[in-house]
Protein backbone atom coordinates (compact mmCIF):
# COMPACT_ATOMS: atom_id res chain seq x y z
CA UNK A 1 0.00 0.00 0.00
CA UNK A 2 1.30 3.41 -0.93
CA UNK A 3 2.01 5.69 1.99
CA UNK A 4 -0.26 8.68 2.19
CA UNK A 5 0.65 12.19 3.10
CA UNK A 6 -1.69 13.88 5.54
CA UNK A 7 -2.00 17.64 5.01
CA UNK A 8 -4.28 20.38 6.27
CA UNK A 9 -6.85 19.22 3.76
CA UNK A 10 -7.12 15.73 5.31
CA UNK A 11 -7.26 17.16 8.83
CA UNK A 12 -10.07 19.52 7.75
CA UNK A 13 -11.90 16.55 6.22
CA UNK A 14 -11.55 14.58 9.47
CA UNK A 15 -13.08 17.46 11.45
CA UNK A 16 -15.86 17.71 8.90
CA UNK A 17 -16.58 14.00 9.09
CA UNK A 18 -16.43 13.55 12.85
CA UNK A 19 -17.92 16.81 14.01
CA UNK A 20 -20.11 17.91 11.12
CA UNK A 21 -18.23 21.19 10.74
CA UNK A 22 -18.28 22.38 7.12
CA UNK A 23 -15.20 21.62 5.06
CA UNK A 24 -14.36 25.32 4.75
CA UNK A 25 -14.68 26.00 8.47
CA UNK A 26 -12.69 22.84 9.11
CA UNK A 27 -9.82 24.26 7.07
CA UNK A 28 -9.98 27.52 8.98
CA UNK A 29 -9.92 25.68 12.31
CA UNK A 30 -6.91 23.61 11.28
CA UNK A 31 -5.08 26.75 10.15
CA UNK A 32 -5.92 28.50 13.40
CA UNK A 33 -4.72 25.67 15.62
CA UNK A 34 -1.37 25.46 13.84
CA UNK A 35 -1.12 29.26 13.91
CA UNK A 36 -1.54 29.17 17.70
CA UNK A 37 1.13 26.46 18.02
CA UNK A 38 3.45 28.39 15.74
CA UNK A 39 3.12 31.61 17.76
CA UNK A 40 3.77 29.66 20.94
CA UNK A 41 6.98 28.14 19.56
CA UNK A 42 8.11 31.49 18.10
CA UNK A 43 7.75 33.01 21.58
CA UNK A 44 10.12 30.27 22.78
CA UNK A 45 7.53 28.28 24.70
CA UNK A 46 7.21 24.48 24.39
CA UNK A 47 3.99 22.66 23.56
CA UNK A 48 3.21 19.50 25.45
CA UNK A 49 0.42 17.31 24.10
CA UNK A 50 0.27 14.34 26.41
CA UNK A 51 -1.10 11.81 23.88
CA UNK A 52 1.09 12.97 21.03
CA UNK A 53 4.39 14.42 22.15
CA UNK A 54 6.31 17.56 23.01
CA UNK A 55 7.60 20.27 20.69
CA UNK A 56 10.46 22.27 22.16
CA UNK A 57 12.54 25.18 20.95
CA UNK A 58 16.18 24.37 21.63
CA UNK A 59 19.30 26.47 21.36
CA UNK A 60 22.03 25.08 19.17
CA UNK A 61 25.54 26.14 20.03
CA UNK A 62 27.73 27.82 17.38
CA UNK A 63 30.10 25.40 15.71
CA UNK A 64 32.82 25.34 13.11
CA UNK A 65 31.57 24.19 9.77
CA UNK A 66 32.57 24.26 6.15
CA UNK A 67 30.96 25.56 3.04
CA UNK A 68 30.41 22.24 1.24
CA UNK A 69 30.91 23.86 -2.15
CA UNK A 70 34.12 25.80 -1.57
CA UNK A 71 35.49 23.84 1.41
CA UNK A 72 36.04 27.13 3.16
CA UNK A 73 35.95 26.96 6.98
CA UNK A 74 33.43 29.20 8.68
CA UNK A 75 31.62 29.57 11.99
CA UNK A 76 28.00 28.58 12.00
CA UNK A 77 26.33 31.02 14.35
CA UNK A 78 24.23 29.84 17.25
CA UNK A 79 20.62 29.25 16.30
CA UNK A 80 17.39 27.81 17.51
CA UNK A 81 15.72 24.68 16.35
CA UNK A 82 12.39 23.03 17.02
CA UNK A 83 12.59 19.44 18.18
CA UNK A 84 9.91 16.87 18.75
CA UNK A 85 9.87 14.14 21.35
CA UNK A 86 7.10 11.61 20.75
CA UNK A 87 5.05 10.59 23.78
CA UNK A 88 5.25 7.04 25.11
CA UNK A 89 1.70 6.48 23.94
CA UNK A 90 2.48 7.54 20.35
CA UNK A 91 5.60 5.34 20.27
CA UNK A 92 3.56 2.40 21.49
CA UNK A 93 0.81 3.10 18.98
CA UNK A 94 3.34 3.04 16.14
CA UNK A 95 4.74 -0.30 17.23
CA UNK A 96 1.59 -2.18 18.18
Amino acid sequence: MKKKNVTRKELAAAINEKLGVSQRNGAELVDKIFAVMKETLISGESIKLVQFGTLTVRDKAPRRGRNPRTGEAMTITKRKMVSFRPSKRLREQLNS
Partner: protein
Amino acid sequence: MNKSELIEALAEKMQLPVREAASITNTIIDTMSDALAQGDSIEIRGFGSFVVKEYDSYIGRNPKTGEKIKVAPKKLPFFKVGKDLRERVNENRKK
Protein backbone atom coordinates in the same frame (compact mmCIF):
# COMPACT_ATOMS: atom_id res chain seq x y z
CA MET B 1 1.63 25.27 26.67
CA ASN B 2 -0.36 22.12 27.25
CA LYS B 3 -3.45 20.79 25.53
CA SER B 4 -6.01 22.66 27.64
CA GLU B 5 -4.18 25.95 27.01
CA LEU B 6 -4.16 25.20 23.28
CA ILE B 7 -7.89 24.47 23.42
CA GLU B 8 -8.55 27.73 25.30
CA ALA B 9 -6.53 29.74 22.78
CA LEU B 10 -8.43 28.16 19.88
CA ALA B 11 -11.79 28.77 21.59
CA GLU B 12 -10.91 32.41 22.13
CA LYS B 13 -9.63 33.05 18.61
CA MET B 14 -12.53 31.33 16.89
CA GLN B 15 -15.20 32.48 19.38
CA LEU B 16 -16.13 28.89 20.08
CA PRO B 17 -17.36 27.13 23.21
CA VAL B 18 -14.42 25.42 24.95
CA ARG B 19 -16.12 22.04 24.56
CA GLU B 20 -16.24 22.41 20.80
CA ALA B 21 -12.64 23.61 20.62
CA ALA B 22 -11.70 20.53 22.67
CA SER B 23 -13.38 18.11 20.23
CA ILE B 24 -11.66 19.84 17.31
CA THR B 25 -8.25 19.70 18.98
CA ASN B 26 -8.70 16.06 19.94
CA THR B 27 -9.83 15.14 16.43
CA ILE B 28 -6.73 16.75 14.95
CA ILE B 29 -4.39 15.03 17.41
CA ASP B 30 -6.11 11.64 16.94
CA THR B 31 -6.05 11.94 13.15
CA MET B 32 -2.34 12.77 13.27
CA SER B 33 -1.54 9.86 15.63
CA ASP B 34 -3.57 7.42 13.51
CA ALA B 35 -1.83 8.58 10.34
CA LEU B 36 1.60 8.00 11.88
CA ALA B 37 0.50 4.63 13.28
CA GLN B 38 -0.36 3.60 9.72
CA GLY B 39 3.06 4.72 8.57
CA ASP B 40 1.72 7.77 6.73
CA SER B 41 3.49 11.10 6.91
CA ILE B 42 2.02 14.46 7.86
CA GLU B 43 2.96 17.70 6.18
CA ILE B 44 1.69 21.05 7.39
CA ARG B 45 3.00 23.82 5.15
CA GLY B 46 4.86 26.50 7.10
CA PHE B 47 4.86 24.42 10.29
CA GLY B 48 6.67 21.18 9.63
CA SER B 49 6.33 17.53 8.76
CA PHE B 50 6.26 14.24 10.62
CA VAL B 51 7.74 11.13 9.03
CA VAL B 52 7.91 7.60 10.40
CA LYS B 53 11.27 5.87 10.16
CA GLU B 54 11.49 2.11 10.38
CA TYR B 55 14.41 0.39 12.02
CA ASP B 56 15.36 -3.26 11.54
CA SER B 57 16.32 -5.29 14.55
CA TYR B 58 19.99 -4.98 15.45
CA ILE B 59 22.48 -6.18 18.04
CA GLY B 60 23.05 -3.40 20.50
CA ARG B 61 24.88 -3.18 23.75
CA ASN B 62 23.80 -2.22 27.19
CA PRO B 63 26.04 0.85 27.63
CA LYS B 64 26.37 0.21 31.35
CA THR B 65 27.32 -3.46 31.36
CA GLY B 66 28.59 -3.88 27.79
CA GLU B 67 26.28 -6.86 27.45
CA LYS B 68 25.04 -7.63 23.94
CA ILE B 69 21.30 -7.44 23.44
CA LYS B 70 19.05 -7.85 20.46
CA VAL B 71 17.00 -4.73 19.77
CA ALA B 72 13.60 -5.47 18.23
CA PRO B 73 12.59 -3.72 14.97
CA LYS B 74 10.82 -0.45 15.69
CA LYS B 75 9.19 2.57 14.15
CA LEU B 76 9.82 6.09 15.35
CA PRO B 77 8.24 9.38 14.31
CA PHE B 78 10.50 12.30 13.36
CA PHE B 79 9.63 15.97 13.06
CA LYS B 80 11.24 18.29 10.58
CA VAL B 81 10.54 21.95 11.17
CA GLY B 82 9.09 23.87 8.20
CA LYS B 83 10.98 26.73 6.57
CA ASP B 84 8.73 29.52 7.83
CA LEU B 85 8.68 28.32 11.45
CA ARG B 86 12.43 27.66 11.40
CA GLU B 87 13.11 31.20 10.21
CA ARG B 88 10.70 32.76 12.64
CA VAL B 89 12.00 31.06 15.80
CA ASN B 90 15.35 32.61 14.84
CA GLU B 91 14.04 36.12 14.19
CA ASN B 92 14.48 37.54 17.69
CA ARG B 93 18.13 36.59 17.62
CA LYS B 94 18.90 38.99 14.76
CA LYS B 95 17.31 42.04 16.38
